[in-house]
């Protein structure tokens, strides 16, 4: 069957991707510029027997979505800046209780109410550090409408595979952009369904991994396991444990299930990197600007390239480190006052010079600015 | 006292919603072709103040006569 081609908005692609992945539950609270995700879910979910609920606030939104996921339904919640802040406590809960969930943040200008209708990429560090305590996070960032579709599917897959919340960090530009999309046909993209405990086979220790499992299979309400879910540190029975030894084991478990599989989780795009002398690191909509600049630069004979983080958390440490070995100058372009650049600086450890270009005032970067910076950087080293 | 008041239109603030026109009891007001309120029949005005009361944009009101001027 040929792929259908359509003009589709980023936020719509998110909903269509979610449906492709088997999404059946949305709970959230409207906020610009993410609202279309709620609106389209309200329209589409009932058609497939799924449920949409507008909760009283964002906290209720994520709580109900986690509830639905615990009950066995693929669930999603979407929001922007202020709502993302409100969801933080329960993001930590989903990590701790190991509940699959897709959380979408269509980033807008902040802090606070900020510039609600302008774009930004300034919740990038919050995606990793916004909730209290130590925890790992998986976050993906799409460059286009089509990739929004694909990464939403992937977010659901990763959430189920690793029993953990996954963030789709998109931005106003991509969320509101309408673009030409070849809609994937059934079977074209992998869809990973929840691995559930075998019906009838009771697990005395439901949080103990069985051989071959990355994470312990989840119990389904009604399968007789009658498991307990909690946000306290718990042991393999699922019941709370106060012991620091157990807490150590458990922290190790929620970290290692992610960090032992970074190669599966981390995706990057290498664009014109092979012979490149000045490299950009970017993600999301800003990488489009970077690509436009690189085309121009290459036309002018300057070998620029881009390492695009598709997975932004865990960050592509290996790839960034390799890049730092290859080039002397790395420019991190992002629509904020300097966030991901700090992660890049940390990883690079001085092996290349790291620059930042970006701003958080709602105005997207333009190719000429990037081109100028590359020229300046190159010039300075001559 | 209400005699001394004068129906006044601050046209640049009018957004043309038509509320004053719709609820003026004596049909003093009309919408013009620019979709703004216009005082059409000032003589009919009974200075009831309903237009002022309900104009969401503070564009029409009864101006009080200023003492001594």
């Amino acid at each position, binding site marked *: 069957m040929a792929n259908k081609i359509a*003009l589709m908005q980023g936020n719509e692609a998110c909903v269509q991707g979610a449906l492709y992945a088997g999404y059946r539950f949305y709970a959230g609270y409207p906020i610009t510029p993410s609202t279309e995700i709620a609106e389209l879910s309200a329209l589409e979910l009932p058609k497939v027997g799924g449920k949409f609920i507008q909760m009283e606030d964002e906290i209720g939104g994520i709580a109900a979505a986690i509830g639905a996921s615990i009950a066995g339904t693929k669930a999603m919640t979407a929001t922007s800046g202020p709502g993302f802040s409100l969801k933080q406590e329960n993001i930590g809960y989903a990590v701790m209780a190991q509940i699959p969930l897709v959380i979408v943040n269509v980033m807008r200008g902040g802090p606070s109410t900020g510039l609600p209708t302008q774009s930004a990429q300034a919740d990038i560090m919050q995606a990793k550090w916004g909730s209290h305590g130590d925890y790992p996070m998986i976050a993906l960032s799409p460059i286009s409408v089509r990739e929004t579709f694909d990464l939403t599917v992937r977010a659901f897959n990763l959430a189920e595979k690793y029993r953990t919340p996954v963030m789709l960090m998109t931005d106003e530009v991509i969320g*509101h*952009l*309408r*673009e*030409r999309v070849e809609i994937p046909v059934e079977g074209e993209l992998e869809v990973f369904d929840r691995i559930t405990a075998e019906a009838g086979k009771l697990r005395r220790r439901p949080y103990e991994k069985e051989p071959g499992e990355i994470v312990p299979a989840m119990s389904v309400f009604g399968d007789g396991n009658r498991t307990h879910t909690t946000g306290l540190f718990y042991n393999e029975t699922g019941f709370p444990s106060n012991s620091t030894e157990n807490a150590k084991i458990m922290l190790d478990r929620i970290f290692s299930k992610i960090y032992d599989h970074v190669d599966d989780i981390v995706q990057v795009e290498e664009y014109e990197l092979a012979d490149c002398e000045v490299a950009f690191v970017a993600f999301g909509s800003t990488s*489009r*600007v970077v690509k436009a600049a690189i085309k121009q630069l290459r036309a002018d004979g300057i070998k620029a390239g881009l390492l695009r983080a598709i997975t932004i958390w865990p960050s592509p440490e290996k790839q960034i480190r390799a890049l730092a070995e290859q080039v002397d100058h790395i420019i991190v372009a992002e629509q904020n006052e300097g966030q991901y650049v700090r992660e890049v600086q940390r990883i690079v450890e001085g092996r290349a010079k790291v620059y930042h270009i970006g701003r958080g005032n709602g105005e*997207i970067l*333009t190719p000429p600015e990037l081109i100028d910076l590359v020229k300046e950087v190159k010039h300075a080293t001559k | 006292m209400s005699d001394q008041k004068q129906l006044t239109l601050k046209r640049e603030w009018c957004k043309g919603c038509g509320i004053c026109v719709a609820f003026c009891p004596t049909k003093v007001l009309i919408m013009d072709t620019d979709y703004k309120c216009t005082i059409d029949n000032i003589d009919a005005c009974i200075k009831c103040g309903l237009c002022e009361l309900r104009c969401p944009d503070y564009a029409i009101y009864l101006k009080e006569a200023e003492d001594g001027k």
Partner: protein
Amino acid sequence: MKHIEFRLTGSGGQGVLMLGVILAEAAINKGYNAIQSQSYGPEARGGASRCEVIISGQDIDFPEVQQPDVLLALTQLAADKYARDLKADAIVIIDDSIELSHDPGTKNIYRLPILVTARDVVRKELTANIVSLAAINQILGLFDQAELLEAILHRVPKGTEILNQRAVDAGIELVQNHAG
């Protein structure tokens, strides 16, 4: 297909958003690339609502219009605000109720009675966007009539086919009369 940037502006209710979506869809149907974006928030409800479309034969990396090749303005406010930073040879299409408050820097100006035509000729004010679309297409020659109509009918409510056909005809005529 070269890279064409459109900025389509007017007041909240005039349907410039729909215009942009139809334009982009027509381009996609024809195998081009296209993107569309728009202003949000109070601005989008006021007199200076904005819709942007880029059509291209290539990948469209930069997601915003940098310098419009084509500007449409249906309100004075929109013209005042957006008839700026155009390409030197940009095409400017404004409703004839508008007085340009400044020189847009191009000579290609079409002052067309779009709103009056929609109201009096098509007999439906809401078709001003379709009249505009037809006019734009007539000037640029992007699509043949059947292609244009298909894209329009895909988006407008059922039962308005004839109305929209009339609007397309009227838009074409406006340009023909202007040109003539």
